[in-house]
């Protein structure tokens, strides 16, 4: 079980690590500015496309089916996000006193209900072919 709520100061290392993570590649990129040769030519700077001149812009519009994946993902990711705080409810000693029908923890029962509802949604999405790659 978690003890005290975590103080903000414990997140200071995150910022330092973030800066450290930026310094290393920036130093490498600064180094190649000095030591690497740089003689740009038009052919050298062109996009690779099987050796020919690139045809049209590459920023294509992707199939709308692709965005259905994103929507289903958002739904299930939110489900997982709800499960994370649920662990602490489940692990709470006081919560384990509440039993349903004498055998099931109340927290477990509620989460079971939640998962079943979402599973119905998943089956619906699969049946409607929302999760078919085209």
């Amino acid at each position, binding site marked *: 079980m978690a003890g005290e709520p975590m103080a903000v100061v414990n997140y200071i290392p995150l910022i330092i690590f973030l800066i*450290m993570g930026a310094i*290393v590649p920036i130093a490498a990129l600064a180094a190649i500015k000095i030591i*690497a040769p740089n003689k740009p030519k038009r052919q050298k700077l062109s996009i*690779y496309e099987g050796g020919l001149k*690139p045809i049209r812009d590459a920023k294509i519009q992707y199939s709308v089916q692709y965005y259905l994946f994103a929507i289903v993902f958002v739904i299930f990711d939110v489900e997982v996000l709800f499960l994370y705080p649920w662990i602490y409810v489940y692990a709470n000693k006081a919560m384990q006193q509440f039993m349903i029908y004498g055998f099931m923890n109340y927290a477990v029962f509620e989460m079971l209900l939640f998962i079943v509802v979402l599973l119905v949604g998943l089956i619906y999405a699969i049946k409607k072919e929302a999760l078919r*790659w085209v």
Partner: protein
Amino acid sequence: MDGIIEIITQFAADEPAVFALIIGIIGAAVISGVVNVGAMLVIWGERKVLSDFCNRYGPNRVGGRWGILQLGADAIKLFTKEDIIPGDADKAVYVWAPIVASMATMLVAVAIPFGALHINGKDYPLVVANMDISALYVEAALSLMAIAVFMAGYSSNNKYSILGAFRGIARMIAYEVPMGVCVISVAVMAHSLNLVEIVESQTVWYVFAQPLGFVIFVIALITDLGRIPFDQSEAEEEIISGYNTEYSGIRWGLLYFQEYNNALLGSILLSLLFLGGWHGPIIPIPILDIISPLIWLFMKVVIVLWFFIWVRSSLFRLRIDQVTNFGWKWMLPLSLLNLGWAVLIGSYFA
């Protein structure tokens, strides 16, 4: 020894902000060194082991028989290559993609315990930011790499890169949910989301307590790391090199290097969650008994990495529609089944 520990804990209690700052600076220097050198050794080890699988020598020229300095030679080559940014590329995003990748790996490294020191019968975990939610945090930070991949692919303005970037995102979102549910199943048994507490609670390794969860987590982890059965975002035979087609020189080197950094950190995470972390019999030799938890974790990580290379050399690449189908239609329901199993075992038999 006791005195030093007492002074440190006292100082941490009195001046938490200063302590966090000092730990952060020391940790950033040490861990970025350890992780980067470790990733270099992983690349070298992968080339060596893969060549063993293929019955050939692998690197054996630079630095003696084992070719241990091959990566130094490769680094010199990458640094002295001409720096080419494609004319049509989105310059700012193109330049920032490797930097974001590196920042993402460091964000993973900050919360992962790299082992423990065994002093006077107690384990002191070596972790920079010991958060209550570190399992959730590490999993979230591991998937930040997908954003760097998308930045690299989208900014290159190359059709192959764009395909790779879109595939990378679709693959990541299909396996993110099962992976999260597996972490939750572990946390249900450990009654905590703190990685240190998860390791401490493993009197029985979770690989034995929930074998199904272990299998799902390994598959999802390989997907997250983009290694071979699931490397559709850079499938060489179909889309040249995927998201990093337009990258060359050290810019490509940085992206490639971060993949191996992530592989190293991911295998540490796998050992911590399912393989008992630094648990193992204490070696009864002075000095060695202090670092024996580190030795056990190191051995587990090496075995996991070897397993990843074995998988890479044995399996073929799957098609992207097969991958997303498998993720949504099998992995997700099975991971929920595993969650039910974990709750059942955790509630009634623990």
